[in-house]
């Protein structure tokens, strides 16, 4: 008679062994592969980010603390708003993560077929979901709570209070998210649910960004813009409710900081979390098996697919069959993968916000706008536009090589030259990026009413920068491939993605510094009411900027080609 026959169950820690062992092994492998440099880069960037968030919060809280009567109210509202935003992010993130961990993970066949009881499977998967979807919010909370603790002198008990409030606050969306997923999977097949959720999540994300931007929170920083104090206070009334866990966290934390401990809120947080976990386990016991069975069903997908051949296929005919089919294949894969194309929704929202921000700049208030100011904004906007393009390239071009990983056997054993593959991937990414770059630059310069000189500088520079950014995205993607990742959206969040963003920021800085020489001379001439004379220095600076961009295009592509040719599978 085995232990299972006797009813003995493995501990929760035992069920989780493969997960934490995998994490430990991965860390050990990273270290053995010379990951110290990587750890230093990641650590430095993380610390800088923490320092930035901490500094921002610290400054605001110090300011609030100086305001009598409503200072701590404002600090509490700010925390409540931050936690409410986190809660919405956590909820969406948990719903999507739960789909993978509860229904699509590779270890489920083993777990479900073993004599482990449902409660342990539920708790193990809930913990996995919680960690995978909440670690970023937990890390982000550290500098925010640290700022509160320091400004309001929380004392040695404050870290404990913070941890005791944050833990149930993170558990609640994990339970709710898993339950929502459980219900959805019982209604739709899991793979369809993933598609559906991707669209809903991104649509919601885009909606939040748009809404947040359109309500213009920067007005809160300028109380003089409000007619009366009552208007200001009304604007401060965020959509919070005493029944929301974010409010309980705020009350518990602010209660401790202001010397009026609110134990009821802490009690509410823990009892609600416990009740929700029990409810989740109940639902799991009743609905998991049916949902898991449904999750095994493949979504039937009949595709005629002739449209691409008729339209783009004809346009690409001069490229020859191998390049044409390769490009068509990449486009089909992109537009048939919901996790890929749905990112365009978010991109569209970000672009609207970008243009809205430019339009909202307090430059045009009836009077004559200083020419100097418009030109400087137009010039510096190049850096911002470049950064936006780099983010888009990180999302769409950086993963291009990684996504071929599992199929590389086919490409490598065929007579397709790796140069042709790289070439196809480069232009598939560059052409849309170029259109976008030109649209952003021209539109913002039109909105800013920039001069023809600044327009020409902007368009020329962004053109060259786009070629370089695209090449760098492809090259860094080839240098730091993620062949095992199935979700393209996760690839840019890797170490390679971070290095790419840092390299792009360096390129943008260099180009802007070089071009600031001719732009300064142009502004100087305009300021002195003198005609602009083109000097060798100006021509040299533009030529140098172009050479830098050209170098940043050609060298990364060469490195990428060499790297791809060296891949071994």
């Amino acid at each position, binding site marked *: 008679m085995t232990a299972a026959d006797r009813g003995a169950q493995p501990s929760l820690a035992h069920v989780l062994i493969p997960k934490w062992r995998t994490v430990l092994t991965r860390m050990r492998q990273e270290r053995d592969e010379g990951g110290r440099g990587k750890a230093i880069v990641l650590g430095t960037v993380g610390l800088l980010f923490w320092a930035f968030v901490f500094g921002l919060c610290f400054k605001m809280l110090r300011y609030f603390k100086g305001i009598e009567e409503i200072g701590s109210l404002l600090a509490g509202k700010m925390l409540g708003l931050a936690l409410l935003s986190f809660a919405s992010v956590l909820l969406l993130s948990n719903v999507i993560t739960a789909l993978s961990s509860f229904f699509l993970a590779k270890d489920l066949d083993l777990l479900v077929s073993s004599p482990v009881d449902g409660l342990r499977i539920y708790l193990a998967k809930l913990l996995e979901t919680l960690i995978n979807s909440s670690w970023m919010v937990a890390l982000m909370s550290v500098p925010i709570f640290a700022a509160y603790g320091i400004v309001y002198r929380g004392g040695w008990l404050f870290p404990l209070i913070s941890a005791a409030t944050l833990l149930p606050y993170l558990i609640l969306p994990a339970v709710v998210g898993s339950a929502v997923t459980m219900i959805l999977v019982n209604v739709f097949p899991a793979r369809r649910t993933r598609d559906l959720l991707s669209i809903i999540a991104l649509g919601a994300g885009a909606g939040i960004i748009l809404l947040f931007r359109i309500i213009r929170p920067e007005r809160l920083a300028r109380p003089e813009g409000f007619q009366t104090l009552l208007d200001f206070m009304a604007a401060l009334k965020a959509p919070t409710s005493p029944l929301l866990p974010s409010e309980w966290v705020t009350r518990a934390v602010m209660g401790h900081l202001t010397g009026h401990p609110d134990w009821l809120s802490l009690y509410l947080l823990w009892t609600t979390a416990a009740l929700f976990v029990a409810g989740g386990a109940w639902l799991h016991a009743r609905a998991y098996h049916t949902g898991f069975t449904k999750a095994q069903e493949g*979504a039937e997908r009949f595709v005629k697919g002739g449209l691409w051949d008729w339209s783009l296929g004809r346009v690409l005919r001069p490229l020859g*069959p*191998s390049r044409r*089919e390769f490009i*068509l294949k990449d486009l*089909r894969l992109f537009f048939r993968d919901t996790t890929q194309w749905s990112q365009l929704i978010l991109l569209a929202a970000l672009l609207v916000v970008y243009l809205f921000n430019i339009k909202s700049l307090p430059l045009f208030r009836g009077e004559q706008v200083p020419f100097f100011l418009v030109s400087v904004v137009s010039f510096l906007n190049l850096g911002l536009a470049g950064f936006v393009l780099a983010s888009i390239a990180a999302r769409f071009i950086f993963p291009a090589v990684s996504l071929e990983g599992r*199929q590389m*056997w086919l490409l490598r054993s065929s*007579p397709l030259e790796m140069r042709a593959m790289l070439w196809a991937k480069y232009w598939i990414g560059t052409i849309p990026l170029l259109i976008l770059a030109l649209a952003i630059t021209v539109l913002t310069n039109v909105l800013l009413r920039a001069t023809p000189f600044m327009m020409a500088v902007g368009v020329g520079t962004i053109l060259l920068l786009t070629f370089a950014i695209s090449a760098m995205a492809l090259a860094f993607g080839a240098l730091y491939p993620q062949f095992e990742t199935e979700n393209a959206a996760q690839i840019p969040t890797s170490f390679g993605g971070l290095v790419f963003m840092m390299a792009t920021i360096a390129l943008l800085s260099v180009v802007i510094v070089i071009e600031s020489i001719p732009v300064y001379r142009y502004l100087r001439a305009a300021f002195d009411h003198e005609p602009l004379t083109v000097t060798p220095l100006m021509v040299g600076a533009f030529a140098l900027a172009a050479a830098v961009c050209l170098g940043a295009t050609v060298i990364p592509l060469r490195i990428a080609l060499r790297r791809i040719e060296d891949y*071994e599978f």
Partner: protein
Amino acid sequence: MIQLEQLTKLYGSFRAVDAISLHVPKGTLHGFLGPNGAGKTTTLRMIAGILRPTSGTVRIGGHNVATDPIGAKARLGFIPDRPFVYDKLTGAEFLRFVAGLYGQEGQVVERRIDELLEIFELSSWKNELVESYSHGMRQKLIISSALIHRPELIVVDEPMVGLDPRAARLLKDLFREFTHRGGTILMSTHTLEIAEALCDRIAIIQGGKIVAHGSMDELRKQHEVGALEDLFMRLTGGAAAKELKAVLEA
């Protein structure tokens, strides 16, 4: 058709393939056998141009894979052991894509796609996304893709994995017909009965080295054994039956 000379592959300090030399004549079906981890897949992937050898050369139809990869690969169809294909393409789109990689297009390709899908009983799945295919169907699709450009040589790693008995029989017939028409096949397999029944010549690899090579008759004479299984066990040191029995009874 295939000429390997002192082919070696090192993974760090591990010698996966150790200076093997092998000649596979045109029009033969050549078996490549060995226990797990012996170096079969590594050798086949070097022949297909997927892995770069540490030293030694691979020639396909006289074309050196290192110096003339395009010329060598144009003659070859590769069937891997794991059927990774693009999930979001349909079967027909995948085959059209592979044909394109070999520079082929048009009505000839369309007819060939229909023929191959018909042979492998995938016609009704022609316009379904590959993500809805079973493991065996994916394997059939990959075999079709290796044949789409009418190669002179097929390099195949464990062809029968995931195939139902009907498809396995079909594949055996197809391989026989392919070699009768002058094609060459290098096939790794663990199914010794298939190797014995199909292959004109067999090489056995153990620890990265070829430990036996010849036709079945030559091997029988050289090693004084009756069946391929006995020879394989003797050369590769299989687990003793009594040990297995002890484990099962424990």
